[in-house]
């Protein structure tokens, strides 16, 4: 079932490409479109899990990568173009425009899992830190730590997602390494 944090943003100046990929994806996830890089940056918010960037977009997408680093965002970048473009090595996956029909669903599904895993890891650590701060006080007062139930639930959810990721994906997402992933 779609969550509120699994939207796909398709950024392409070419209408035909936008239509072809959105027609495949929109039955599975909320899809937004942008025709320029500025438009894509303006559309960035917490609901975006995957951004598809067309290699034919006019400006270099450096700001997009910078925004992700600066804001510690979980969105995954899918490069729509050839596998030897200048920004390929900074994207999580590459999609050949000729393979949109048969590959985009599989690749975006994988990137959705990565983005979700990243978000939950962040949430889990934040809660665990709160627990670390509250544990002493709660113990002194004889109360259970308020976050334990949520932490336990989150851990189960994390374990379910990571079971669907291979080791490379799992450790990449967890450790923040972003080597190229060519499909």
């Amino acid at each position, binding site marked *: 079932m779609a969550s509120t944090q699994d939207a796909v943003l398709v950024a392409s100046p070419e209408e035909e490409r936008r239509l072809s990929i959105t027609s495949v994806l929109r039955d599975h996830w909320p899809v937004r479109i942008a025709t320029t890089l500025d438009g894509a940056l303006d559309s960035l918010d917490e609901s975006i899990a995957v951004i598809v960037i067309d290699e034919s977009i006019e400006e270099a997408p450096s700001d997009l990568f910078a925004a992700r680093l600066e804001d510690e965002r979980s969105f995954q970048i899918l490069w729509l173009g050839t596998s030897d473009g200048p920004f390929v090595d900074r994207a999580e996956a590459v999609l050949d425009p000729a393979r949109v029909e048969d590959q985009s669903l599989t690749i975006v599904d994988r990137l959705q899992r990565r983005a979700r895993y990243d978000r939950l*890891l962040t949430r889990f650590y934040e809660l665990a830190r709160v627990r670390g701060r509250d*544990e002493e006080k709660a113990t002194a007062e004889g109360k259970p730590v308020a976050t334990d*139930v949520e932490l336990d639930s989150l*851990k189960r959810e994390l*374990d379910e997602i990571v079971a669907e990721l291979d*080791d490379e994906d*799992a450790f990449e997402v967890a*450790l923040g390494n972003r080597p190229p992933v060519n499909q």
Partner: protein
Amino acid sequence: MSDELSPGVDATETPSNVLCVCPAIGNAKNEHCRDLLTREGPPGTVLGVTVASSPGERMSEWSNVIDPVRTTLSFVDVSHGGRSAAMSADGFGGQNGAIVNVVEVDEVDLHRIGTEITTQLENAEKGPVVVCLDSLTDLLQFETARTLHRFLNVLTARVEEADAIAHYHIDADGHPDRTFDTLAPLFDATIRADSRSE
């Protein structure tokens, strides 16, 4: 000493992942290590992950409870470079010629350490499979608490998926209490053998 199960963990099941909080100096750490190695009986496979200690030191500590001829021993050794990938246990002080597989990781590269561990888990043929990581204190000298937390999330999940059991040492005197409390939710149980546990 105190044992504490995490919420949601069935008390009748052997915990898959145990945080072992003991002083680095003294007998408690190695006593608990030996107990945790043999919780399910004699282990068929032991995978040691050594960061500060060496494979030889761990094997020496385990000599009373592990028979290296019957137990498959492997190490992911992060502390020393230049050791060959497979060498006789005689190199660690003589263990009846048992073959011990040692994978060297020349620096604290969590991605490499993680994938080496999961590869060893996948290749383990004899159960029970037991993992000993020594220690989180050493890893925390090279990585942030956040990064280590995320790494352990993947690793503990992989241990459970492999039906293995693992324990992770951390120096009870090396960190403030909030470090243990922040790490604890990653594990099914925490064993403490320090002044706080009394």
